[in-house]
């Protein structure tokens, strides 16, 4: 019903990217993938555990969705670039959700390392989707070095605080020539709807779905919320007014006094 999201020339019918972190069981991840109707799910790259039973990739591929490796946990451009290269080898994709964080407490991106990593990965032929803060200037610079999208945060990863600074997201959307995907901070459906109403092209959710009491129900909820937000954005909302405006006519009242 709504137009597809196009990143680097690729059409995605779903505007929801799903993070696989935080699901207690692989089965509920699979069910959440179905419920969300996502076509792209993120994974992290970690040391293999030969003892691990059940394969994350089997679950993802059995759902017919694609994998988007991230560089979560990297603090330097160098580590992030190497991690992206390992991911490309392991997963045979040149798409990467680029994360370069400044500290473990806030998990906020480090602007300098992020931009340096983005530039190098673009040069290496990657399709780079950077997780960034809500700074419009940094977002433009990431676009300028060739990122295929920008993924500003609404609020810190896993915080569920929603969109802390809608004005910054609006500034980013106004200037962007690549898709803007809200990443981090979504806590519930209305946050995702708001992101789309602000003009974002998509939303990435991990904890909001994976750590909800009922991940599958929340996946359905956020799918509907994104659809709602896209439609509302296109519908042209009424302006906010300080004072009331009657929705019933004030004229034509019958005279009912005794």
């Amino acid at each position: 019903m709504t137009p597809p999201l196009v990143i680097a020339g690729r059409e995605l019918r779903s505007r929801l990217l799903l993070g696989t972190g935080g699901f207690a069981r692989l089965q509920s991840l699979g069910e959440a993938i179905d419920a969300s109707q996502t076509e792209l799910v993120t994974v992290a790259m970690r040391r293999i555990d030969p003892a691990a039973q059940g394969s994350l990739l089997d679950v993802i591929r059995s759902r017919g969705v694609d994998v988007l490796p991230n560089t979560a946990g990297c603090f330097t451009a160098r580590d992030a670039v190497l991690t992206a290269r390992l991911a490309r080898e392991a997963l045979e994709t040149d798409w990467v959700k680029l994360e370069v964080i400044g500290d473990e407490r806030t998990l906020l991106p480090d602007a300098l390392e992020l931009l340096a990593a983005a530039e190098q990965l673009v040069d290496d032929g990657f399709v780079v989707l950077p997780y960034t803060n809500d700074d419009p200037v940094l977002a433009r610079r990431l676009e300028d070095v060739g990122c295929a999208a920008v993924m500003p945060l609404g609020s810190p990863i896993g915080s569920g605080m929603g969109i802390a600074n809608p004005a910054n997201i609006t500034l980013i959307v106004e200037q962007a020539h690549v898709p803007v995907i809200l990443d981090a901070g979504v806590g519930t459906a209305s946050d995702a709807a708001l992101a789309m109403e602000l003009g974002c092209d998509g939303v990435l959710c991990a904890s909001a779905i994976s750590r909800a009491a009922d991940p599958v129900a929340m996946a359905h909820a956020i799918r509907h919320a994104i659809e709602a937000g896209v439609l509302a954005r296109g519908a042209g909302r009424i302006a906010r007014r300080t004072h009331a405006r009657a929705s019933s006519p004030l004229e034509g009242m019958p005279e009912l006094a005794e």
Partner: protein
Amino acid sequence: MIYVNGTPTDAPAGATIHDVLVGLRIDPETAGIAVAIDAEVARRGVWPTHTVPDGARVEIVTATQGG
């Protein structure tokens, strides 16, 4: 002696990446894994022939759940 994912591991002289994987009971045909030797990516094609030098840091990674 080499270091596989941080763990000191015995490996015969001249062992290839392929040999190291087999030694860990990891099927080199497994999809979804990648290998770095001393912080350089070793592409899958070189596993059968690339020997792992003594003292090398071998990192074997795969996809795990992540946001």
